């Protein structure tokens, strides 16, 4: 008996090879990203596509280095218009969401209006914004705001509108006013919806600002890409897209982090361990 157990113990310890010590799940996003670029590069080599149609990633990175100064400035500009528009959307979305969720009558009256408004493609509003505010940062900020505030409103209002009737009964029987119920139950319970919607809203905000910059601005990644396109500088267009993707992922990660920090109780399965 003792010989057998000694044997298994001895063979178990050194067996952990390099492949087992690596945390593949943590590494996976990086590996897949690298894989995508490798595949892309191979595709370009095999199909021999000219860089004016589909530049290889190596050409795109080369363009990033070559045009680093304008890319850097325009990226910051886009990040600025997006975050300002997004910040306004957060404040306005929270306020309007609370207002709409407040009563059934307001909800019923304003909701169709909101849907109709959201159905309008925001790119169609850019010309109007240009007439009102001229070209530049203001229409970009406003487009980012207009496109990203809707999911915030809907989510906050939903959080408020779905309070369990029993909870409301218990509190109302104690003499709670509408304001009490909103403050004690409605608002805290809509917070997970709110923070969840920020992840959707921030990516939409990038769509808004870039659309507006493309049509009506002399700055920003949208403008940079459209002028690069007119000069057939396709690698630079792709460099712009890559920067947008990087900014989008970074902001999304920030929102996801804020969500986890603020509403840990809603992710109870991970917290109870």
């Amino acid at each position, binding site marked *: 008996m003792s010989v057998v157990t000694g044997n298994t113990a001895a063979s178990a310890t050194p067996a952990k090879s390099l492949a087992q010590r690596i945390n593949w799940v943590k590494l996976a996003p990086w590996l897949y990203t690298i894989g995508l670029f490798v595949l892309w590069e191979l595709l370009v080599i095999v199909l021999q596509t000219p860089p004016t149609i589909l530049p290889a990633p190596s050409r795109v990175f080369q363009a990033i280095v070559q045009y680093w100064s304008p890319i850097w400035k325009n990226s910051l500009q886009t990040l600025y218009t997006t975050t300002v528009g997004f910040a306004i959307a957060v404040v306005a979305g929270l306020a309007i969401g609370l207002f709409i969720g407040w009563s059934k009558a307001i909800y019923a009256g304003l909701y169709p209006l909101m849907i109709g408004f959201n159905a309008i493609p925001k790119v169609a509003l850019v010309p109007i914004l240009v007439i009102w505010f001229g070209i530049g940062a203001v229409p970009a900020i406003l487009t980012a705001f207009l496109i990203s505030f809707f999911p915030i409103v809907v989510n906050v209002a939903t959080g408020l509108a779905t309070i369990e009737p029993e909870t409301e009964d*218990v509190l109302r029987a104690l003499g709670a006013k509408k304001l009490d119920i909103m403050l004690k139950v409605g608002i805290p319970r809509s917070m997970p919806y709110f923070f969840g919607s920020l992840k959707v809203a921030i990516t939409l905000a990038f769509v808004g600002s870039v659309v507006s910059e493309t049509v009506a601005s002399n700055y920003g990644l949208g403008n940079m890409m459209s002028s690069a396109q007119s000069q057939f500088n396709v690698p630079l267009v792709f460099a712009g897209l890559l920067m947008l993707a990087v900014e989008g992922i970074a902001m999304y990660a920030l929102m996801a982090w804020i969500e986890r920090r603020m*509403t840990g109780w809603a992710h109870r399965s991970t917290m109870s361990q």
Partner: protein
Amino acid sequence: MSHLVTIDNVDMRYGGAAGTLAVSGLTMKVGKGEFAAVVGPSGCGKSTLMKLVTGLHIPQSGVVIVADKQVTKPVSIVGMAFQNPTMLPWRTTLDNILLPLEIVERHRHRLRANKKEYVEKAEHLLETVGLKGFGSKFPWQLSGGMQQRANLCRALIHEPELLMLDEPFGALDAFTREELWCVIRDLHAAQGVTIVLVTHDLREATFLADRIFVMSARPGKVLKEHTVPFARPRDLEVMYEKAFNDMVHELHGEIASARVVA
């Protein structure tokens, strides 16, 4: 015996003149300190009864009198507990239990200054229901039975004169349910609170109550009133006596025939 709750010939219709009549000609009286149970076929207006007594609904005709006052708005001397514990997941169990104190007029202005006293009271209640030391846990870290115990604490924290229970043990397993029967039995004995328990479980009603009201199918009214003869304090063993089973059997028969009529 003075009556804490008097319901006299009450009609309650939902959704306007053509809506469903939930209760009709409902009359019942519950004495101060009494433990009353309401049983009946499903859809007999038991939940309507809860809402009428707590003032969440005002009847179209007839009067509801609670503590010598006609009910025209929510009465804050009531504590309520439902089958769904409805604990707020972002608050600790202790903060959940303290919630009614943030609402009820006579406590909300004193809460901040006398926090310590109230917390002690909440912890004492937790101890009574067997949840000592769980106050700092979040409700979702507790089992269903523990949440329901905490729910009872929340219903009792503002020292209500009347406790309204709507099938509070319906979702629990048989053993947990029996444990909680004993908890509520002891609370009733110790605090002298009047309790109205709405339930589908006839054994539960017979074990806990002093008086049982049998309701008809919709529109609900009281068909029969039973006085439960078993002496207090009752032990769970009482449920295995013949008299107990006979009573449950009789109640069962009455509800079965009320269902057929509907």
